[in-house]
């Protein structure tokens, strides 16, 4: 394939959203791979779906609810047990500098 469907710029954007730091070499490699995958999946568009309803979910199951009843929570000690950094009350993360990705 001479021209990639997912070009370098798009690959860079996807990597940024996934918080992946890629080298120029990797960018070009993944650009080709992602485009190949997309090309492969494109095959599906050859299928005639004229009379098929779009599917929002793959299981024929709906309305699985639970009642609004309180169950025991973990508690602070257990919740923090596996955290890389905490102060016995809070999870500690590197100081947040807003990069605008929050909602």
């Amino acid at each position, binding site marked *: 394939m001479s021209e990639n469907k997912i070009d370098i710029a798009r690959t860079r954007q996807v990597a940024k959203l996934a918080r992946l730091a890629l080298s120029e070499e990797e960018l070009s490699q993944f650009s080709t791979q992602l485009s190949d995958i997309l090309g492969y999946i494109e095959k599906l568009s050859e299928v005639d779906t004229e009379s098929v309803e779009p599917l929002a*979910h793959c299981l024929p199951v709906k309305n699985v609810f639970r009642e609004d009843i309180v169950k025991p929570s973990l508690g602070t000690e257990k919740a923090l047990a596996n955290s890389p950094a905490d*102060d016995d009350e809070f999870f500690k993360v590197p100081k947040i500098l807003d990069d605008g990705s929050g909602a």
Partner: protein
Amino acid sequence: MTNLDYKIIVGLEIHVQLATKTKMFCGCALSFGEDANSRVCPVCIGMPGALPVMNKQAVEFSLLAGLALNCEIPSFTKWDRKSYYYPDLPKNYQISQYDLPLNGTGFIEIPLEDGTSKRIRITRAHLEEDAGKNIHAGDAFSRVDLNRAGTPLLEIVTEPDLSSGTEVRALAIELQRIVRYLGISEADMQKGHMRFEPNINLAITKDGTEYRTPITEVKNLNSFRALQRSVEYEARRQLDEFIDTGKTMVMGNKSTYGWDDNRNVTVLQREKEEAHDYRYFPDPDLVPVEVDEKWLSKIKSRLCELPLQKQKRFVEQFGLSDYDAGVLTADKATAEFFDETVKAGAEAKRVCNLLTQIGLKLANEKNCSVAELGILPKALAKLCVMASEGQISASAAQTILVEMSGGENEPEKIAEEKNLLQKNDTGELEKIVDEVLANNPDAIAEVKAGGKKSKKASGFLMGQIIKATKGSANPQMAAKILSQKLGQ
């Protein structure tokens, strides 16, 4: 001088925290002020392999809100993942609804200051989970509390139909009344149960051409006052900016401002060139929700008369002023208490006066609603009837109401004990009138002489009679006896 005219255009996004006992997708209790990270479990903390299960109550609360907001309710709705990275979002995605929300288009009527109402279109109202809380202490770390993560939120989005800070505030207050009437949210602003994000811009007409200023979104609004002021401030700021720079709106371009409550100004947080890329896709961990007629009509049966309907009815049915009707319908318990008292036979305006002049003050002092003062509607109705029939004076009724708030529900007994019953006994009253007349021959002469002084003199005699009975005389009856005795 150029000819310049402008209109404010505002749309609102409102997050309402639902009053469920547990979180949206797990059995953790909702929390406020508990120890940090104590009310979390593998689901809401985003442990691998943990699976979310929908809280039925949250879905029903949302549908009830949709019905009250006149929303179209689709029969099929689903959950989507909204992806972004932030430490308060443990799964790196928020479970929300993208293209198939629980509630579609609808509208809300908001009361305006002139007593009319305005219809604001609702774009959608969907259900989602809240994020946790980040705490920035100023050192090298940020701290994360996930107690709030997973709390059910109803996000209501309006069309840009609002055209002033006052209207935006009115909508916020009306929505608070509605969700409280429905019992689906405590809607406590101080606890962050309602969060507002207005989107504001101006339509400016200059020399016959219309321009739109860039849209700004304002965050961090934690009171109705801040909400109103932020809209008013933004309108002024945008007008100034337009006059200075002539900058106009670019599609899809939106800046975010924060509200500084101390300085009463908006502060630029970020300017966005590109829209967020949240990469929404259907959440494979959750199955869709299908709403059939049977379920929906069951939820519909939980709808009650809504606040603005009630307010309008109080005006039309009882002749109350729009202001008084608004005061009485501010909370459901007070409105129902008023309604029941009238049903028990009291004159509506008298109940209204007693409640607005005395009842609400008592309730305020005790930090409760009028309905929680310990007064029974029947007893209040009895009190009103006593006043209407002239057994007690209007001011005695107020005194008795204060006594009744102490839990005593027999107004007759209080009236008797406090000697507040007006003397309706004509024999006794006649005797008093005779005595007063015997002591005041000058006044009698003045009355009989007629003219200007006559009125004043008969007023004086009435005063003497009331005084002689220590205020317990029924004034109408005393006046009747007096004029008979004076041969008038």
